[in-house]
């Protein structure tokens, strides 16, 4: 109402025409339209094209046009392609393990930085730095550190008398090694989100708890955690969606190797589409991947609503 009054006043003041009034009244829609057109071309058109391509079979360098096969690619993805299903399992394992560890560590760090101690500002900045680094640069440094014969990690292991490990070339240890990189880089994100949540916590429950004789651990378990739950869920959701899509770390270290032991869905889609050139099948895999990510977001959202 206030807005209408303003425009009327302006209209009265200026010796207006009808079109001027129209522009004034609908300025917000008019200004948004270019953005919507832009988003439409940049996001919606490629998505629809991918969806359309996922119904076809097409080998990229083939001179023949794409062949329509309906839901054939989807059938193959779920019922015939074991490599795809294994990649899916691995992606979920990687995501849940990664987010779980990051949540725990991030919360611990956040709680630590919630208190006052000397040098807190500096240490907190240092702890936030990993998040700022370029993922590819981080991966390259870790590759050097993980090198079985010349790397720093094996050097320390040998100093401690433990056997040297293969790290990124051992199919059993490769996922935990990659998780280490992921945790190192993204725990600060969780830490920051939880710190924000902590700073918003009210003081009164803690005072009452102290009066009632609760010790630190009880305060944490029965006060902090429940109060923090919405923050933790949001942080977990943020991180899970990104961890699910992890690509840069894996591409620049192992490219899914050795064999396929570190191949997650994103890497598999890349290999299928851009290295093996099965564009139709890769499009179908991308749509499935999108559906999975959206599904995770929806579930997490409903969990958030009920807490």
């Amino acid at each position, binding site marked *: 109402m206030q807005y209408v009054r*303003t425009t009327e006043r302006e209209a009265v003041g200026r010796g207006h025409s009808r079109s001027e009034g129209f522009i004034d009244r609908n300025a917000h829609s008019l200004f948004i339209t270019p953005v919507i057109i832009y988003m439409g071309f940049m996001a919606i058109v490629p998505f629809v094209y991918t969806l359309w391509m996922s119904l076809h079979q097409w080998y990229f*360098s083939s001179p023949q046009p794409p062949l329509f096969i309906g839901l054939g690619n989807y059938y193959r993805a779920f019922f015939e392609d074991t490599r795809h299903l294994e990649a899916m399992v691995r992606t979920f394992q990687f995501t849940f393990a990664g987010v779980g560890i990051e949540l725990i560590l991030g919360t611990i760090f956040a709680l630590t930085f919630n208190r006052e101690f000397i040098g807190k500002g500096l240490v907190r900045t240092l702890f936030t730095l990993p998040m700022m680094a370029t993922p590819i640069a981080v991966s390259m440094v870790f590759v050097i550190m993980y090198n079985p014969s010349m790397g720093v990690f094996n050097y320390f292991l040998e100093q401690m008398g433990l056997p*040297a490990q293969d790290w990124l070339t051992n199919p059993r240890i490769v996922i935990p090694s990659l998780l280490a990189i992921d945790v190192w880089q993204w725990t600060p994100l969780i830490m920051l989100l939880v710190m924000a949540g902590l700073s918003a916590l009210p003081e009164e429950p803690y005072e009452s708890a102290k009066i009632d004789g609760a010790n630190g651990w009880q305060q944490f378990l029965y006060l902090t955690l429940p109060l923090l739950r919405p923050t933790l869920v949001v942080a977990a959701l943020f991180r899970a969606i990104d961890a699910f899509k992890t690509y840069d770390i894996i591409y620049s270290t192992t490219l899914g190797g050795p064999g396929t032991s570190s191949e997650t869905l994103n890497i598999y889609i890349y290999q299928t589409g851009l290295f093996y050139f099965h564009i139709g099948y890769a499009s179908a895999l991308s749509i499935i991947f999108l559906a999975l990510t959206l599904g995770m977001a929806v579930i997490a959202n409903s969990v958030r609503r009920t807490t």
Partner: protein
Amino acid sequence: MGKGAFSKVLSVLVLLSLVITACGATPTATPVPPTATKPPAPTAAPAAPTATKAPAAPTAAPAAPTAAPAATKAPAAPTAAPAAAFNWKKYAGATISYMGIKNANHDFIISKLPEFEALTGIKVNGEVLPDAAFRQKLPVELQSGAGTVDAFATLPSYDALRFANAGWYEDLSKYLNNKDLTDPNLDYKDLWEACQNVLTVNGKLIGLGYQSDAQVLFYRKDLVQKYNVTLPFNDLASFEAAVKKIAEGEKANGIAGFVARGKAGNVVYPSAPYIFASGGAWQDASGKIQLNDPKVIAGLEFYGRLLRDYGPKGVEGFDVFGALDTMLQGKSAFWSDYAGNIATLLDPKQSKVVDTIGSTTLPGGKGTAGSWGTAIASSSKKKEAAWYFVQWVASKEMEIKMAQANLPTCRTSAWNDPGFLKNSPKEWQDAFQKSFATGVVNGLNPAVIPVPQVRDIIGTIVLAVIQKQDVKAAADKAQADALAVIAAAK
């Protein structure tokens, strides 16, 4: 500020950001400018020492200020003096894009681009990418048909069927036979017959060769002497015995017996000679792939076993650079790979084994023979200017310079060049010549269309050997997968 004013400011900001992003976006791919690469040490360095005889063969004089047909002759040119009437500067001012794969030969080409520019006035945006990136980016550029790549390096054993099937190659015979566009000194017949044949696909000439590709066995002379090993190895068993002896003896020094590429599809190229030495072949007489043929399995199993038992830690993750690094550091007694790596192994700036590296033919005496050529994209919009580049790369002058830099070339004149003969280790020349002559032509990869995927499938067999799993089952599965992939890639 009121609510209305705020939303107006916000919308203006959104519009502004839209405009800025639209202006900032550059539609064309911008390849790395050629002069950015400092001439890589291994290739540029060796040309200097042979100052005794003729100076490094001069190109058709770039000093000519105008497009004068009679080029000024440089003294004591070892090659035929450039004849009159070929106008190198016909396309001066044009700009072409070139994409190559990262190896010593291509680094050399990139380092010489300023000479090309001086000669022809054509600017080249050259981009050299490591294996995986090159193999992924080039087809995408060619498929787009936008003409973003004019000339590119091609390895027929890897690319030919697929690219020819897709129609990405320009037929070069019409340029070769066109007297107006071809330097009379090109001397096509001087190119090795194998290089000519390999680059002729379905009757079309798809590229001019400049790099001949054969594999040799690099070894450390001091270790071979120390353990009294006789070379060359006529069969695989004696090779394995020698590797075992050295590996066990040098374990305390952290030196591995044998190193080679171990990562996924990279194993295909270096393991091929071992398959051939075991009597196998990638495909049977009818052309069908046979990955579970017992002889093929034997060869792959031999290769994988050597890597597993006598290779350095982490060898399953080694591409060519991983293996090269190991050898440069002197951490392995033997390395089986592309012969052109000698240039890096003899470079004092990178190699610790300059004085102790030797080359010999591969165990079992079988190898692979291939050739890289420069091709022109059929979607290129500057084919004539690209043709000038193609000829220049394959020209006598460039080939001789390349040979003097210890790189394998495709020309008889280059192999006979006195500078090359003096500079490059005789042992290496012999090993290369023998290996190339007895090598299976285009045996570097199975001759199929979906080469990248089939290579990865073959990699799974070697991985099964390294991880001590059921090799026969892995080979059977690989065979089934490969057949499915080949069928789907029509």
